[in-house]
């Protein structure tokens, strides 16, 4: 029986069918729905970890102890998890372990375009690259077989168009392998130099063996057609190649790393011109060239952005160039903070105080967009704190009085705590603002260690952020409601002026997780003088008109924050 499944849903199904027992993840677009779907399978233990490093360590522990396990993350999550992962390939796994990593070519919802295949090679981990949901499911089973046969963690690499596409999937049943025996093995699992020298040799031999076996692996296949042009491709790029170049011969690599040298040599010998068409980096192309096989591809497509069918037709088939997918002469529609968003009040105050804001990854990054334009820096999870501290140490304590770090509750749990400890330890007098909206917002509302609910929504221990900060030695910890603009301004002013480290917790739940009044704010046009104060907060419900403003009743959720900004009494909360 076929089902229409999101790539991420099919990954979860594949894990369930393969008998996975433990899954740990941190949400991140485009990977989030994998673990959300895993959580629906009662036979699998699943959890949200505070970050990807912990998730990989949990999966490794489970695998070493004898259970099939997995960890899921977006591409930049593997950077966070690189430390355990790069040594897990040395220790090996016992039972199968798979790490699913979702890349985001075109940066739909990410800060960079990082190619996970490069990290697979750098860490000596095999890497599978599916092209549709059926392959997502099937490759999971194969990934566990490879993991156990070659005793290594395996990466299944997705891209946005695979993770977030629904295609038909033939499903199967769950086959649960027995727990493998756990045996203490110091030489294998204790990563001291003397042990790992030996293990590195094992890694090298294993990689050579898998590279050889890859020549006959079922997921690496040649689709012979016209021999004038041959294309080596994989993943989403394969789909575009099949539509743009229906007559070309194709070598589809299901296993992106290690690459099957003999199969590629055979394919190259069978075609007149060899192209390599791949998303992101010239990963296959560089290796094929290094083997002395003439080919080209990246010189035509470049590394930035997604490949599409038309792009391939234009670059490789001499088709007429086509225009952009969107009409470009009309106003664009950037994402915005939602109506009723608590971050809006915080950013309004920070802008008013003209502070330098080192911000972070989350919905509140949207505070960088006009009219708030309230963010100076945003780099990666947790960087707000480290960068604000760096500015203080470079320019002195006076800089700290003009600077704040801003990050969310989930981001603080992910990578903020160590940065804050560094500030306390190294005598910072800076100010960190934790925008605590009780949820992981941008990725679609996942619970986290600070909100007291687990992945299933069941109650669990909640991190006490105040006590944590106090225990670290933060001199002052205060809580404000960001919708109380006066109080928020007063507290932030006092805390940035303080000659000691301070944390301000800006606390109000995400507008999408609490019940709103949904009674639109009332605008009295007779009182409105058109000063534009209320427009400074960038609320999608407040619309500029020729004489002043009007409230869009379909957008306004009735939060009433804007009424504090109007000095003329024109904006009033609904009765």
């Amino acid at each position, binding site marked *: 029986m076929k089902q229409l499944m999101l790539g991420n849903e099919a990954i979860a199904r594949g894990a369930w069918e393969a008998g996975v027992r433990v899954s740990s993840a941190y949400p991140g677009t485009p990977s989030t729905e994998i673990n959300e779907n895993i959580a629906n399978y009662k036979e699998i233990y699943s959890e949200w970890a505070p970050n990807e490093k912990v998730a990989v360590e949990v999966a490794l522990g489970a695998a070493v102890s004898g259970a099939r396990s997995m960890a899921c993350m977006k591409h930049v999550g593997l950077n966070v998890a690189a430390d355990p992962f790069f040594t897990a390939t040395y220790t090996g796994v016992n039972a199968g372990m798979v790490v699913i990593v979702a890349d985001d070519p075109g940066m739909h919802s990410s800060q960079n375009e990082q190619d996970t295949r490069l990290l697979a090679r750098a860490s000596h981990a095999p890497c599978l690259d599916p092209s549709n949901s059926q392959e997502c499911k099937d490759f999971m089973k194969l990934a566990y077989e490879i993991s156990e046969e070659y005793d290594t963690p395996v990466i299944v690499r997705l891209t946005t*168009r695979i993770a977030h596409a629904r295609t038909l999937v033939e499903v199967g049943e769950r086959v649960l392998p027995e727990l493998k025996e756990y045996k203490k093995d110091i030489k294998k699992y204790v990563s001291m130099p003397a042990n790992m020298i030996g293990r590195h040799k094992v890694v090298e031999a294993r990689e050579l063996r898998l590279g050889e076996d890859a020549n006959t692996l079922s997921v690496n296949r040649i689709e012979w057609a016209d021999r004038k042009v041959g294309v080596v491709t994989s993943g989403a790029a394969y789909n575009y190649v099949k539509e743009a170049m229906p007559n070309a011969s194709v070598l589809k690599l299901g296993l992106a790393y290690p690459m099957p040298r003999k199969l590629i040599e055979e394919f190259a010998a069978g075609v007149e011109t060899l192209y390599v068409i791949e998303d992101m980096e010239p990963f296959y192309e560089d290796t094929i060239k290094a083997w002395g096989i003439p080919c080209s591809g990246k010189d035509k497509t470049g590394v930035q952005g997604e490949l599409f069918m038309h792009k391939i037709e234009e670059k490789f088939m001499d088709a007429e160039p086509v*225009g952009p997918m*969107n009409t470009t002469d*009309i*106003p664009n*529609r950037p994402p915005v903070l939602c109506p009723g968003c608590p971050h809006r009040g915080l950013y309004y105050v920070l802008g008013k105080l003209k502070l330098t804001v080192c911000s972070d990854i989350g919905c509140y990054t949207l505070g960088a967009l006009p*009219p708030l334009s309230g963010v100076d820096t945003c780099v990666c999870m947790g960087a707000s704190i480290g960068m604000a501290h760096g500015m203080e140490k470079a320019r002195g304590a006076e800089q700290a009085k003009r600077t704040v770090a801003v990050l969310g509750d989930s981001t603080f749990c992910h990578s903020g705590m160590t940065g804050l400890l560094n500030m306390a330890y190294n005598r910072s007098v800076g100010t960190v603002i934790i925008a605590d909206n009780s949820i992981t917002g941008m990725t679609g509302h996942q619970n986290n260690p600070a909100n007291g609910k687990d992945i299933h929504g069941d109650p669990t221990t909640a991190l006490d952020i105040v006590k944590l900060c106090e225990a670290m030695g933060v001199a002052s910890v205060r809580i404000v409601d960001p919708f109380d603009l006066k109080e928020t301004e007063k507290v932030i002013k006092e805390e940035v002026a303080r000659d000691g480290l301070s944390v301000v917790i800006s606390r109000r739940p995400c507008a999408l997780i609490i019940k709103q009044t949904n009674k639109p704010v009332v605008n009295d046009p007779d009182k409105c003088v058109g000063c534009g104060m209320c427009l400074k907060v*960038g609320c999608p419900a407040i*619309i500029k008109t020729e004489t002043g403003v009007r409230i869009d009743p379909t957008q306004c959720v009735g939060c009433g924050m804007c009424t504090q900004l109007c000095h003329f009494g024109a904006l009033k909360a609904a009765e």
Partner: protein
Amino acid sequence: MFNIVIVGVGGQGTLLASKILGVLAMNNGYDVRVSEVHGMSQRGGSVVTYVRISNDQPIYSSIVEQGQADVVLAFENLEAVRALPYMKKEGTMIINTQEILPMPVITGAAQYPANCLERTRDAVKTVELNAVEIAHECGTYKAANVVLMGVLAKSLPFSEEEWKKAITACVKPKFLDVNLMAFDRGYNY
């Protein structure tokens, strides 16, 4: 092969529309690809969903590209204009005639074009309706997407009964009656 593009503003319910279409095509033995948008642009930004169905040739790509769309379902007037490059010359644009102002317009940095519907009409065949109002009359403005499904139904080779089966499979039982009514209103528009 039939290509549909669904465009709108994050939060308008475009994902349910693509899900209904996907289930409908699958139930009728078609191959299906649906490409969705999650993450940042869902926060009030432009969103685009692609649906490709076929019972005659294989589908590989889940993306509908320039000049490939048989139908564009536009949930908003400005997004209808933005999506024009997707249209086949002989294609149809079904438009929910609603205006949602983007932030550059709200702040006064840009103007909302006055002629969105004319511009669309000049380029392709259009069906224009206030689906939000019709849905509101059925019981909830949230069913606007299903009103549009009803209009679309006349362009696709599936029976009314099959459409209703797909809708039943995709919406919560609590909201089924409202949605079936919304579908009828669109179907008979």
